[in-house]
């Protein structure tokens, strides 16, 4: 019992020692923490942006609905009949008849050539059925093939080009962010490891002396690990702050973009869970970086 209490008090002592050391040279420590914070904030911030873009792309278009255009000759009752038939398929979630006149309105709204269509002499559109598939993309191919084979069908059009473009852009952005994340995560470990390494160098004499009077490796190692942890957690907090500020800076062009799409989507900020993540990752990287540095460099220092 007593031993455990003493061990704990030793730990607490080390921890406060580390905090004191950070607070003791406020500027130097703040600089270290700032660098780590930036290295954490950049990928986290970029990730928030990409997540936002994804959520936004979700609001732009539902699932990959597609349109079945019927022959001009198909009349209203036949078209409605067909829609019902399609709706009953297993691989179809929804199928709605778009009346010729409704279709023209729809076409105007989405084609981007809206006003140009006012110039048309008569409604040139046939009936159309809008289908939302239920299955996977493999099922989709089969479904399209089936519908195309119907004799009433003039054309099946998968209007997914725009969505695909967007997905490709986001995919690319995600890849860029991934590369950045790996690079900067590496940077965090190296910065902390490096700082601890130089810190160890600065305390070379102290380490030697403690070894000389019988301090074990664990005793020497502990304050450095706590120091790394302090750096990491401090950096996590600061990173959250930087992201909030950074999002503020990009908020205005983002809003401009939203307006272009007539969207009332609001940019999502950093959630509490994200912040907890940042703290956790910061603390872990700090501890790990310190551990690596200590393991590498503590043995090198032997009294002579």
């Amino acid at each position, binding site marked *: 019992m007593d031993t455990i209490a*003493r*061990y704990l008090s*030793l730990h607490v002592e080390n921890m406060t020692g580390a905090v004191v050391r950070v607070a003791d040279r406020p500027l130097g420590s703040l600089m270290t923490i700032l660098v780590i914070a930036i290295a954490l904030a950049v990928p986290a911030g970029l990730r928030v942006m990409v997540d936002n873009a994804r959520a936004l792309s979700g609001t732009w278009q539902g699932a990959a609905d597609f349109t079945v255009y019927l022959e001009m000759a198909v009349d209203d009752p036949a078209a409605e009949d067909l829609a019902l038939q399609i709706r009953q398929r297993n691989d179809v979630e929804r199928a709605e008849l778009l009346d010729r006149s409704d279709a023209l309105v729809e076409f105007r709204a989405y084609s981007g050539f809206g006003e140009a269509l006012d110039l048309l002499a008569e409604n040139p559109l046939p009936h159309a059925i809008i289908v939302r598939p239920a299955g996977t993309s493999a099922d989709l191919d089969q479904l399209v093939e089936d519908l195309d084979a119907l004799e009433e069908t003039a054309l099946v059009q998968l209007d997914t080009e725009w969505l695909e473009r967007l997905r490709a852009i986001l995919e690319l952005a995600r890849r860029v962010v991934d590369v950045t994340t790996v690079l900067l995560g590496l940077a965090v470990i190296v910065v902390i490891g490096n700082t601890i390494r130089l810190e160890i160098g600065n305390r070379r*004499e*102290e380490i*030697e*002396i*403690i*070894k*000389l*009077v*019988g*301090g*074990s*490796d664990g*005793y020497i190692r502990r304050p450095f690990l706590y120091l790394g942890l302090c750096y990491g957690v401090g950096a996590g907090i600061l990173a959250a702050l930087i992201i909030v500020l950074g999002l503020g800076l990009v908020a205005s062009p983002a809003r401009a973009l939203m307006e272009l799409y007539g969207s009332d989507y609001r940019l999502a900020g950093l959630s509490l869970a994200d912040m907890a993540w940042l703290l956790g990752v910061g603390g872990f990287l700090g501890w790990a970086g310190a551990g690596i540095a200590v393991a590498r460099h503590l043995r090198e220092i*032997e*009294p*002579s």
Partner: protein
Amino acid sequence: MIRFENVRKRYPAGREALRGVSFRLERGEMAFLTGPSGAGKSTLLKLVALIERPTRGTVLVASQNTARVPRRRIPQFRRQIGIVFQDHKLLHDRTVFDNVALPLMISSLRRRELRGRVRAALDQVGLLRYENQFPLSLSSGEQQRVGIARAVASRPQLVIADEPTGNLDPGLSLEIMRLFGRFNDVGTTVLIATHDLELISRMGYRRLYLEAGSMAGPAAVPG
């Protein structure tokens, strides 16, 4: 307490600091180690404290063969020895009190007891009034005495000291040597390397004489 058997020490640079040294220091004994500069005195003490390891021969300390103490057991091994260093080796960013308390903190001594022991040790070297000062604000003689206080604060069974009076005036030197004598009186084994021949001739403890890495004269008692 200490037994050297035909110990040789050759440093990587190729210089041979000890060339076959054998002697024995009994439990509770006190002895002075003398010899000219570069004779190997510090090297001999370093072998006792496991700061260096012998190239050949056997070093036994407190009945343990130092060759059999693995790296990770060295801290424990050192805790039974009080060492006074030629260059003080104090931590400049800790107070005199904290410096003396260091070995006790490492042994996780209870706070109350630690305090008592540290102050007793400081009192013995006449520096109690400086307990809250930092080492850099002390004269070198004062620093040396802080080093002595640290070495004895944990009441080790063996104290080794490398020229503990090199920076002290003759009067203080004698006083410090008498202090070591008092530790010896209560059973501590003491080995002191020193140049102060005049001083030790007045004190009459056993003398070990090293020259160019070999023990000479009547002091050498083959193990």
